[in-house]
């Protein structure tokens, strides 16, 4: 059994990925309603993944246990932390879970941008902590950005490879730092794209059409932002801004206004685009 902490977009998707590959999951959240939503969403996502052929059609499906009691993950073989992108909250949850699981249990954070070593500082055994930046939806996108912190042990890295092997994912291991590779670049691109829309130089459709048509991106930056969730984009930008001091990462006004208005993207039905929301 693996533990997945946080039943938001990523925690839910990671739970789908795991049970679809026959791995039992204990999904933990503080909110019972979110757990109920997640249970229904996992069932739907499994079907969507099967239709698209990104998940094994046959073979065992893992058991999904939803709980608000963190002590239920004591026997987990690995922990995937996917709570909201707030450094204090992630630190609190990781510190708590590190006191519950056995020494040597992998603590894998799915942080978007917080340096792994910063999070490792709060746990009982910093060597057990590594980062795995899954993309959304994790059961569709095979590639995972894996982050090795300066104190991450070789044993923990072996556990990461074993876990991602079970989940049939590919990985690239990179060094630690705010935003790692993907978000150090991507969040800036999203922020600048939003600023361009804010300045009235181009519509979201125009920006995305250029990245798709000129650069061959599968999804443009603003459609990607809607998929990530604009609340998470703003949180990640703040993490990057605070840690680098680089003003280019300060979330632009348009992005902040959308978050303030509850326009988080796909998960709320509206962001830079309108979405038909059946899987909020």
């Amino acid at each position, binding site marked *: 059994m693996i533990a997945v902490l946080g039943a938001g977009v990523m925690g839910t998707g990671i739970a789908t990925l795991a049970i679809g590959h026959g791995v039992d999951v204990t999904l933990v959240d503080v909110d019972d309603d979110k757990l109920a939503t997640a249970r229904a969403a996992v069932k*739907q*996502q499994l*079907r*969507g*993944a*099967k*239709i*698209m*052929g*990104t998940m094994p*059609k046959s073979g065992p499906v893992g058991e999904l246990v939803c709980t608000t009691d963190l002590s239920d993950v004591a026997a987990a073989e690995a922990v995937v932390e996917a709570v909201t992108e707030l450094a204090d909250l992630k630190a609190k949850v990781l510190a708590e879970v590190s006191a519950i699981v056995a020494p040597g249990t992998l603590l894998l954070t799915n942080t978007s941008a917080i340096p792994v070593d910063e999070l490792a500082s709060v746990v009982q055994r910093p060597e057990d902590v590594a980062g795995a930046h899954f993309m959304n*939806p994790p*059961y*569709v996108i095979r590639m995972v950005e894996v982050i090795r912190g300066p104190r991450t042990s070789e044993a923990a890295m072996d556990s990461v490879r074993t876990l991602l092997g079970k989940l049939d994912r590919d990985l690239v291991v990179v060094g630690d730092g705010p935003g790692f590779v993907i978000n150090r670049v991507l969040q800036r691109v999203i922020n600048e794209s939003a600023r361009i829309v804010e300045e009235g130089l181009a519509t979201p459709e125009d920006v995305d059409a250029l990245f798709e048509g000129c650069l061959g991106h599968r999804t443009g930056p603003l459609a990607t932002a809607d998929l990530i969730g604009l609340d998470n984009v703003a949180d990640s930008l703040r993490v990057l801004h605070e840690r680098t001091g680089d003003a280019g990462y300060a979330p632009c006004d348009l992005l902040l206004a959308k978050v303030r208005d509850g326009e988080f993207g*796909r998960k709320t039905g509206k962001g830079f685009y309108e979405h*038909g929301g*059946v*899987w909020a």
Partner: protein
Amino acid sequence: MSITVGLHDFLVSRTKRAWEPDEDLFAAGVVSSLFALELVVYLEKAHGVEVEGEYLSIDNFRTISRIEKMVHELQAATP
């Protein structure tokens, strides 16, 4: 409402374009796993069927005609 008309309306509302009955939704690049899910949920709600097992295959969702055929089969199998 006929399956084709309702389904076509649904596709138009989501993709902002019209679709021929035998046009490949996936080849046009508009159908993602997320959209496939919306489609399943729509079909289940609109036609009271449950899409499960062997039916969860991209081939059954490739065109409006194929989706219609699948829904007819599922309806026939439902008591």
